[in-house]
């Protein structure tokens, strides 16, 4: 059979929006190097700029460990060059903060306010960063749906990315895993998308866990699927679900047969997939495995994954990582030119392409223990280091950005072990893993040392983070607070069971405000919301100020602490072409507090405040004043209080290029 691999154009045409498996543009075939495809004709400026981005690197911790001599390279850079706290975005969420850097403006200019926005006509949560549309025109032939014209995935960030401006000025750039750049904006520069890049299902994370342990089976866990399996005659039969097959009329989920043969005597198993076999010992990870999900006889889609044999007996436990987009044969747009991802895959083999590759949800749901989580994230970090080294080795001109996610992900998961008062603190685990964050910062120091050595003295080096970190010990249910404060109303206040659905019980004719997203609060505005009741203008402005004041006055009944340190009225903090789409109020939480896990999608639990007992125990949804990031440079930083968008202005200024009209920053050097 002459099976054709699915190109992005094919996939786009098919509008696989159900799984968000969409792609844009024509696939550039392997064999065209990124250099020849996009960069050969560029001028070679003498100025070189390297920016290292360590997600979530916190200045308080950095200061402590610099003082203690544990971050010698950062300390040297601070003393010989410059070091400042870097003002973050409002709110300090990564897609918002990195968009400030990318577009050189505030959210009012680029339009990304949260991971989650809302549709005012349905009060329904929607993705802030991308929009997918299904194929507009299809024809049906028997059971097949053949796309004629179609769907796309669109990056919703407004404004030009700074590397597009560099391109205008013929400055070559390589942008490795920039967050909030999925799908990557159109450019001839070498770019690989970062945070926001989905797995093969279109999700941010979906691991699979095959287990005989029935009490472990809870299908409704975040970021993964648990599969109950049985060992019969030392053999396990299961399926690996693939993406939805939108080529078929009934849109079934594709799947691949998975058979596992257990050694009768030893803790060893053989994993059998179509056309390949993998032998694993207990507690062993496989190398990357390529899976090909058949769609129709001439089309398939490729993904990459790794297996981890957690246990053979007495219970069988096999972990399958999120299935990443295959960089060698990407069914989604993850790179510009497309050959850049293929080039890296040829050099390094398969590598993590998913936006945030750490299996945080496996740890949070007890599928992994701390050691297993770190082993997996060490793989991520090793791959990242290898690719950064490769890019540094060939960095001879222009601009290079490289991103590290582990600093952020490990702080989310291990902050609980820094403070014995945290509800999720565990003394025994802390004794073993209490220094994980410190070790991760030391790893960042080592990456910086290597980069400094390779970059050379003539290169301007800047090191930045998008935000800092805070403990997350207490959860705030915003919609429950609004309900009790009289700003939100139910049709039937006694039917609490309906509150699990977003606003299922809300009486919009009596509701003045609602919370959606991780920091957002919206007024139910007449003419904007489907059933709005608050008039725009003075009525709304007064209500915004009243709610802001009451939020800041609210105290945690358990601790007496202020929960919302700053409630920002959008009008006071956002300017630009996209300011109209902002939440009306953005909550800036006090240290130790965050929005609950239930509130962002509109759920309304009984209590306003709850303990956070999850392993996800550090966060950065607080007031921007509490969560500055870091900025180091190998030159003095003259600006006293630089912000993310000032780094953008600095880069363009050094290359003598003008800012776009939307960019608001000023050079920091």
């Amino acid at each position, binding site marked *: 059979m002459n099976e054709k691999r699915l190109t992005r154009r094919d996939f786009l045409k098919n509008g696989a929006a159900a799984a968000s498996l969409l792609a844009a543009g024509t696939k550039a075939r392997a064999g065209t190097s990124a250099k020849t495809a996009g960069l050969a004709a560029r001028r070679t400026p003498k100025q070189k700029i390297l920016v290292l981005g360590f997600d979530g690197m916190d200045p308080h911790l950095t200061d402590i460990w610099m003082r203690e001599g544990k971050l010698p390279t950062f300390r040297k850079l601070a003393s010989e060059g410059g070091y400042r706290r870097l003002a973050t975005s409002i709110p300090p969420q990564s897609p918002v903060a990195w968009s400030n850097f990318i577009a050189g403006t505030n959210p009012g200019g680029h339009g990304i306010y949260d*991971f989650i926005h809302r549709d005012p006509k*349905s009060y329904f949560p929607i993705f802030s960063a991308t929009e997918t549309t299904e194929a507009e025109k299809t024809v049906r032939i028997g059971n097949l749906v053949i796309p004629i014209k179609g769907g796309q995935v669109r990056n919703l960030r407004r404004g030009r990315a700074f590397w597009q401006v560099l391109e205008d000025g013929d400055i070559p750039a390589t942008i490795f895993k920039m967050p909030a750049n999925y799908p990557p904006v159109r450019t001839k520069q070498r770019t690989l998308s970062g945070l926001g890049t989905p797995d093969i299902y279109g999700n*941010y994370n979906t691991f699979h866990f095959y287990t005989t342990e029935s009490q472990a089976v809870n299908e409704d866990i*975040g*970021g993964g699927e648990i599969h109950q399996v049985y060992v019969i005659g030392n053999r396990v039969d299961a399926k690996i679900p693939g993406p939805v097959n939108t080529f078929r009329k009934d849109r079934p989920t594709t799947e691949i047969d998975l058979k596992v043969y257990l050694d009768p005597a030893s803790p060893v198993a053989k994993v059998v997939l179509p056309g390949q076999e993998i032998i694993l010992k207990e507690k062993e990870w496989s190398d990357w495995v390529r899976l090909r999900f058949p769609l129709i006889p001439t089309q398939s889609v490729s993904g990459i994954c790794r297996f981890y044999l957690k246990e053979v007996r007495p219970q069988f436990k096999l972990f399958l990582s*999120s299935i990443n987009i295959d960089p060698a044969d990407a069914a989604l747009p993850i790179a510009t030119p497309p050959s850049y991802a293929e080039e890296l895959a040829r050099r390094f083999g398969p590598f993590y392409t998913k936006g945030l590759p750490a299996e*945080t949800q496996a740890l949070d749901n007890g599928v992994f223990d701390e050691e297993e989580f770190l082993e997996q994230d060490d793989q991520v970090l090793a791959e990242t280091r290898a690719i950064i080294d490769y890019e540094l080795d060939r960095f001879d001109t222009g601009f290079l950005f490289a991103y590290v996610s582990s600093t952020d992900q490990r702080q989310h998961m291990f902050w609980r072990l820094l403070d014995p008062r945290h509800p999720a603190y565990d003394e025994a685990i802390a004794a073993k893993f209490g220094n994980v964050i410190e070790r991760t910062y030391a790893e960042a120091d080592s990456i910086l040392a290597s980069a400094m050595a390779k970059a050379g003295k003539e290169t301007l080096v800047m090191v930045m983070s998008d935000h800092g970190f805070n403990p997350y010990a207490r959860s705030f249910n915003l919609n429950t607070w609004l309900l009790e404060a009289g700003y939100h109303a139910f049709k039937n206040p006694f039917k609490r069971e309906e509150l699990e659905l977003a606003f299922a019980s809300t009486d919009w004719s009596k509701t003045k405000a609602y919370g959606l997203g991780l920091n957002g609060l919206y007024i139910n505005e007449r003419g904007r919301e489907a059933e709005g009741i608050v008039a725009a203008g003075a009525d709304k402005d007064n209500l915004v100020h009243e709610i802001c004041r009451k939020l800041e006055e609210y105290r945690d009944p358990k601790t007496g602490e202020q929960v919302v340190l700053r409630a920002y009225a959008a009008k006071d903090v956002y300017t630009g072409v996209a300011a109209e789409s902002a939440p009306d109020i953005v909550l800036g939480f006090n240290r130790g507090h965050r929005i609950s896990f239930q509130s962002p*999608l509109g759920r309304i639990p009984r209590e306003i405040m709850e303990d956070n007992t999850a392993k996800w125990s550090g*966060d950065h949804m607080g007031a921007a004043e509490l969560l500055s990031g870091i900025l180091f440079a190998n030159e003095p930083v003259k600006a006293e209080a630089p912000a993310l968008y000032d780094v953008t202005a600095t880069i363009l200024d050094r290359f003598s290029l003008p800012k776009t009209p939307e960019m608001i920053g000023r050079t920091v050097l």
Partner: protein
Amino acid sequence: MATEKIKLPKDLMDKVRRYAAMSGYSSAEEFIAHCLEKEIGQIEESSSEDEIKKKLKGLGYIG
């Protein structure tokens, strides 16, 4: 607008006619169409909510 015929049990149809008239619908057809649209809307909303929840849960920020 194109229309199609469907079959319903007689007992149910009797109830539909009775309650359609009581509720102020102009016809049994209008009542049935309204009920179906409402039900389909709920299913669509619930499945798209599941979809977005599933996608976002992987991030770790929501539960």
